[in-house]
């Protein structure tokens, strides 16, 4: 890749969401905006190496793309038969004459685009793929690689989603006050899913897919800049930063998973932890708690403990009690049970886990059996622990997690 191509790639990744967002508003058409942006990128690649980088690359791309859209509309043979396109063409031509100055990205446009990409009428897979492509600037091949599916599956998913946006008239709008909180929750869910897919890949060889973690962090930072007064958005960013601060310590030199308890805390990124803690405090100070803020507060308590033994487990149990009010799910109950093991006793924790297992709702969830096996091991019930690890192994899909369980099985 030439230097110009590399610069373009970097700029594209950082700014494509912003550029595309404003283009969609200016052009009023998702597909036309994407095509025009591709044209503008081709121009950039052809002219920037000799002319040098423009003062505002994003502004240059928007202005050029608008002109390219104008060309496309003028040359389109069907233009004569389509009234909306004629009106758009006229409007663009007027704008082209009256606004010779450069357009620049508008933050509200990016928010509109985020809410369109994460609209609840789209499937969750489609929301993730759209967000990564449209806002994150990832290619179809990159998204396919990240989720271990083939290119054509992702391409199809994206084209179906864009077709639905156009034909079902999914709005390009910031939701009104009444529905903002619930819609924002959906957006945060998509970003967290991307992060988790990177942080603890559900399947495949690698434990951490660093690229997806970086993409999710970048998107979450962008969202917090757009919505600084939404504490849940800040809470999610804090949660991601705090998890990511422990990245180096989670895997040993052979690529094996290390549990939180056994991690070398010297390898934790102190600066990032400080940033995460600061973010949690900013969010909680707004006195509008929510599930991401509470999860971040739990992560902060873990991150602030100098040793595993110093962890403030009673406080963590209290936070899980709070979390259950917002997210009454069996997975949260399981995490709370694990905290009870340290705050109280493995016996009490095991009773809670057995109760969960008895309800059958997590019967194919490997972490349930891993937690149960660990509690049995702590209680010295080694034969039962062994059986339970074997069952967890039969359910675990991530290669590193499987190797971790196999290690435990060998320790018997």
């Amino acid at each position, binding site marked *: 890749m030439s230097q110009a191509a590399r610069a373009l790639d970097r700029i594209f990744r950082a700014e494509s969401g912003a550029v595309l967002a404003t283009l969609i508003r200016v052009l009023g058409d998702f597909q036309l905006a994407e095509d025009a942006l591709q044209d503008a990128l081709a121009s950039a690649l052809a002219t920037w190496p000799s002319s040098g980088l423009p003062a505002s690359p994003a502004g240059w791309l928007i202005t050029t793309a608008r002109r390219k859209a104008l060309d496309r509309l003028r040359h389109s043979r069907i233009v004569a038969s389509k009234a909306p396109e004629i009106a758009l063409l006229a409007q663009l031509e007027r704008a082209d004459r009256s606004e010779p100055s450069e357009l620049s990205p508008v933050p509200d446009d990016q928010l509109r685009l985020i809410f369109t990409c994460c609209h609840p*009428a789209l499937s969750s897979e489609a929301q993730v793929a759209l967000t990564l492509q449209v806002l994150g600037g990832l290619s179809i091949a990159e998204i396919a690689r990240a989720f271990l599916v083939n290119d054509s599956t992702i391409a199809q998913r994206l084209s179906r989603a864009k077709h639905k946006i156009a*034909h079902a008239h*999914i*709005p390009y*709008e910031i939701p009104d006050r009444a529905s903002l909180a619930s819609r924002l929750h959906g957006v945060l869910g998509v970003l967290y899913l991307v992060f988790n897919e990177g942080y603890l890949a559900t399947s495949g060889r690698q434990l951490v897919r660093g690229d997806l973690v970086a993409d999710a962090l970048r998107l979450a930072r962008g969202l917090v800049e757009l919505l600084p007064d939404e504490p849940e958005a800040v809470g999610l960013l804090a949660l991601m930063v705090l998890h990511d601060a422990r990245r180096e310590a989670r895997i040993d030199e052979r690529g094996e998973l290390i549990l939180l308890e056994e991690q070398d805390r010297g390898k934790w990124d102190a600066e990032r932890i400080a940033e995460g803690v600061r973010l949690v405090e900013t969010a909680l100070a707004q006195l509008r708690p929510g599930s991401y803020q509470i999860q971040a507060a739990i992560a902060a308590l873990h991150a602030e403990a100098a040793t595993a033994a110093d962890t403030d487990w009673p406080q963590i149990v209290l936070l899980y009690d709070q979390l259950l009010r917002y997210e009454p799910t069996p997975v949260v109950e399981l995490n709370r049970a694990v905290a009870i093991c340290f705050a109280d006793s493995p016996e009490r924790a095991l009773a809670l886990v057995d109760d969960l297992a008895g309800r059958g709702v997590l019967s194919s969830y490997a972490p349930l059996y891993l937690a149960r096996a660990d509690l049995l091991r702590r209680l010295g019930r080694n034969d039962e622990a062994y059986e339970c690890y074997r069952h967890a192994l039969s359910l675990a899909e991530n290669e590193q997690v499987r190797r971790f369980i196999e290690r435990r099985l060998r320790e018997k």
Partner: protein
Amino acid sequence: MKYLLLIYEAEKVWAAMSKEEQGSIFNEYMTLTEDFAKSGKMSACEPLEPTSTATTLRVRNGKPTSVDGPFAETKEQLGGIYVIDVKDLDEAMAWAARIPAARTGSIEIRPVMKFD
């Protein structure tokens, strides 16, 4: 933008309700339909007779055959439709959420095809 709202609900749920419950839901439909009509955004509203009155017809090789009942056995049956003309999917979803059957059954929101 026109949308067809298809109201699906298990007929036996309705049949199992008391007269009072049926009356209160009927009143809810009346209020909703009046609101729709007043907004000027409704172009059709048709409650349907139960599927026990349905006939499914097919023409194969030019020969019509008909069978008693709806074409598929499903848990929920089509009970009625609204056709509305609103700004976008969000507005359609907001109206659909007010249909009583949304609480017990489901509402399918289908954009009406535009030819341009």
